[in-house]
């Protein structure tokens, strides 16, 4: 199949201690139904674990959901781990209970998009499509 015809590979997972995975699972299924290959890692992982999986799986985007409130530490730590592995270019999308005032901080730290609780599923899919596609295009041009 031609690369351009596929939506791409994305990682969906959770970092930190909160154990609610209904949201993440729902997004994983929605993305699959939209044609994505979804690497689902489950809950309670460290930023380093997620980064390592993203690298091995060579994903086109990482979607991390958090409800715990620890995003300001965990997400930058994950982006740092990605950079260490020469994978700082993989786009990161953060979803969940993120207070408005933290959004610009996360974006400063390299997060590509923040989707707060209540974002319509279609919007989430559109964001993933756009972000993953852009990354795939980039990968392709320098390949």
């Amino acid at each position, binding site marked *: *199949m031609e*690369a351009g015809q596929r939506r791409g590979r994305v990682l969906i997972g959770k970092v930190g201690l909160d154990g609610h995975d209904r949201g993440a699972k729902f997004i*994983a299924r929605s993305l*699959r139904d939209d044609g994505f*290959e979804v690497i*689902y890692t489950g809950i309670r992982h460290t930023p380093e674990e997620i980064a*390592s*999986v993203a690298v091995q799986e060579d994903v086109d985007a990482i979607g991390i959901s958090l409800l715990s409130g620890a995003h300001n530490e965990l997400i930058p730590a994950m982006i740092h781990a990605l950079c260490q592995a020469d994978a700082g270019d993989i786009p990161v999308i953060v979803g969940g209970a993120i207070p408005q005032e933290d959004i610009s901080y996360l974006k400063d730290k390299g997060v590509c998009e923040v989707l707060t609780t209540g974002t319509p599923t279609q919007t989430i899919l559109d964001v993933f499509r756009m972000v993953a596609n852009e990354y795939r295009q980039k990968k392709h041009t320098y*390949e």
Partner: protein
Amino acid sequence: MNEIDGILKGIREGNPRTIGRAISAIEEGNHRAAAILQGINEGCVLAATILGITGPPGAGKSTLINQLISHYRIHGKRVGIVAIDPSSPVSGGAILGDRIRMMRHATDPGVIIRSMSTRGRVGGLCAAAGSAAKIMACSGCNPVIIETVGVGHLEIDIVGLADIVVFVLAPGFGDDVQAMKAGLIEMADVLVVNKADHAGADALIVDLKYATQGRDCQVCSTSATESRGIEDLANIIGNIAQRKRQTGQFIQKREKMLESEILHRAVELMRTKLKDRLMAQEEQIIGDPQDIVRKLLEEVCVTQLESKKR
């Protein structure tokens, strides 16, 4: 150093980013793929044992592989895993969830795991999985484990990719019968009754031992969640690998693998070409399917030849 040499060096050094990228290049069939594969050290590929682990959904394949990884890591071996899940026939998408059971090894530099979806292709998938296994072998992984769900025809192709085939069953599914019907058990070198902590495991073992009488097939039991029987299974696998290498069976099968890989690649190439051609047809297709097939094949082969000449 040119780009491909850089990639090959990264693979040999076990750089996860390079390995991940190289497998993608091969999966997508981009222009680097052929050069990477050509540059792969055949010696490493021959040195590595490729284990195919198959069996019905939910039998515990991924959980068992998780335990096998731990076992091999204790023995200082670098391990590669290619985990294949089916894609949705409707959307083409897939949830690749085998990895969840192996997250314990996520940051271990001695473990490389790659998930793949079938993407509705049988031949192409096998080619991609086989190539991914080669890249892992080239990075020093031995063994390389390929996980697939075994219920239809696909896994028979996977059987052709592996040096040793381990078929995993669990009591209480009735899958044993299904598997026997599908002839899968006949392809296996080892039958594992997993979930030995469940009732019915002993009876299943007896059944399987009876069914495999007189055949070169070992039966053993494990409890992947309780980490029991893993050592035995690894020893059985190790002994089979050693014996197959000594008797020359190993090399014979590798030669056959090459043939089937070429066939798979050719079929996959043709399939996309045929499909494109068919889709490109402006007017509605009518008439005898057999005639149409003949014409289609001719057309595709002619354009292929012409593009070669140019």
